[in-house]
């Protein structure tokens, strides 16, 4: 269970998160939606320890994450993907996943490196290969992550987050920049993530994806939680529709916005795109 408890975050005079409270339960997929600048990524960044909240608490299974160094937050069981892909470009896909499974204790690391103890290499490798298999990218294991197509990189990033066996996984726009086919594949993968122990946060603009996979939706606007409920309730909520373009019936505009944005991302990822089509 991941809890944001009355969290506020100010960047100077700009209030990015305004007294937001969210409860992300394990076993279900919780979507966080909202227009650009609503504060969705900021929530993820605070939970992952990139910066501290101005006030409020963030709890993972009862443990306060605020103030822990980033790597300890990861070890507490939180993993994430990034809105702008951040893979270890020079490493192979398999190595990217292995990073998530590096032994935690420094003495163990030393012992393995200095030939004092048994290496766990093969075991870790098998675990990572199993994750790649599950996500259908086992054939890419030895490829250099930076040389992959954009869509493939997005899946690798998801795989890396999954490999760590987290208790909470936060996906920041995993479908951004993917085409329809890729998005459908991603949807299937996200659905397989569901497990009784795992709290899943899905941040997305693609309403089709959101409405089809999520069990619970938070709508953010200007840093505040505007609405919370199941997909049907959110779709019919006039307040939510108004927040998007200031008029009822505007839900479709979110998708339009998402599509426009998707094209932008595509252009930014020009190199990856070329690879994808070759």
């Amino acid at each position, binding site marked *: 269970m991941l809890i944001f408890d009355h969290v506020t975050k100010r960047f100077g005079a700009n209030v990015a998160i305004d007294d937001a409270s969210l409860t992300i339960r394990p076993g279900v997929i919780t979507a966080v939606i909202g227009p650009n600048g609503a504060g969705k990524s900021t929530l993820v960044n605070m939970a*992952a320890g990139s910066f501290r909240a101005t006030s409020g608490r963030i709890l993972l299974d009862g443990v306060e994450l605020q103030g822990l160094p980033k790597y300890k937050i990861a070890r507490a069981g939180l993993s*994430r993907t990034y809105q702008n892909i951040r893979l270890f470009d020079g490493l192979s896909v398999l*190595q990217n996943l292995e*990073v998530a499974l*590096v032994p935690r204790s420094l003495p163990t690391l030393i012992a393995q*490196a200095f030939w004092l103890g048994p290496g766990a290499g093969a075991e*870790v490798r098998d675990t990572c290969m199993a994750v790649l298999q599950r996500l259908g990218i086992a054939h890419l294991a030895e490829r250099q992550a930076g040389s992959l197509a954009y869509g493939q990189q997005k899946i690798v990033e998801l795989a890396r987050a999954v490999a760590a066996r987290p208790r909470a996984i936060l996906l920041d726009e995993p479908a951004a920049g993917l085409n329809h086919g890729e998005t459908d594949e991603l949807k299937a993968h996200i659905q397989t993530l569901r497990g009784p122990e795992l709290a899943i946060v899905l941040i997305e603009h693609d309403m089709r994806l959101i409405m089809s996979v999520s069990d619970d939706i938070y709508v953010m606007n200007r840093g505040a939680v505007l609405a919370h409920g199941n997909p049907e309730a959110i779709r019919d909520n006039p307040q939510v529709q108004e927040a998007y373009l200031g008029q009822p019936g505007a839900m479709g505009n979110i998708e339009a916005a998402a599509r426009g944005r998707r094209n932008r991302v595509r252009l930014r990822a020009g190199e990856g795109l070329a690879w994808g089509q070759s």
Partner: protein
Amino acid sequence: MALMPIAVVVVGVFLPAYPLRILDLVLLYAILGMGLNIVVGYAGLLDLGYVAFYAIGAYTYALLASPQFDLHLPFLLILAIGAGLAALAGVLLGIPVLRLRGDYLAIVTLGFGEIIRVLMNNLDWMTNGPQGIARIDEASLFGWRVSTPVDFLYLLVGLAVLTFLFVWRLQESALGTALAAVREDQDAARGCGIDTTGVKLIAFATSATIGGVGGVVFASMQRFVSPESFTFWESLSIVLVVVVGGLGNPFGVMLGAGLLVLVPELLRAYADYRQLLFGVALVLVILARPMGLIRREYGPSWFARKLMAR
């Protein structure tokens, strides 16, 4: 792969004294380069003060095996002490500076190198200052007196092989994976649960240890040490061995050591232009091959796979 050291020994044994000394020097730089490579090549941190650890090793031997304090401890014991002191220095320096990034780290390590040299220069009562320490004992290993260049050839080849196997294993281990992640994207590595400061500290201390070992051997080879041997240029030379040869690749480092020692020697005939020619050559190499002469992926594991496949 196992044939290479044997070949070096066979060739070396038949060389006259002068080229043999140069071969010894190549091996010493290769060892130092493989050590520094852990920090510069694997972890991607620029350390411009590596000579400090080398100096610590050298002075450890000079002080503990010479008339200076009339101490004459055995070579192996001093090797362990020198390595230990260098590792300690690595940790003590590492703790405050490893939070720094890129350029700042380079500057601070550079400063540390200079501090050690200035200390050696000024602690007259201990080090004789600029005059240095002479009449250092001959090394001896289990009754084997290591004194001629051929003796050192055996010793250095042995050490180089050990260092090579050690750094290879390190690179292939989980620690190597963690360091690679730090090099690629430190922030994302933290997000994956890597204690980046911790693993960098291990890298720093390990690399310092190898520098210390190199220093002990150097002092026993020269039988004389003075601060002059431990200037910033020495640090820079070792960085160049790594960068020219191949960042993150022990084979590259060996090649780099060969070139950085041999080329200046060959250019001796053109004394006036030596520095200039050498500098131009370096710049050309780095421009043409920014990742070094032998790229990272063609390392020992690649080579081992190639051998297996045949």
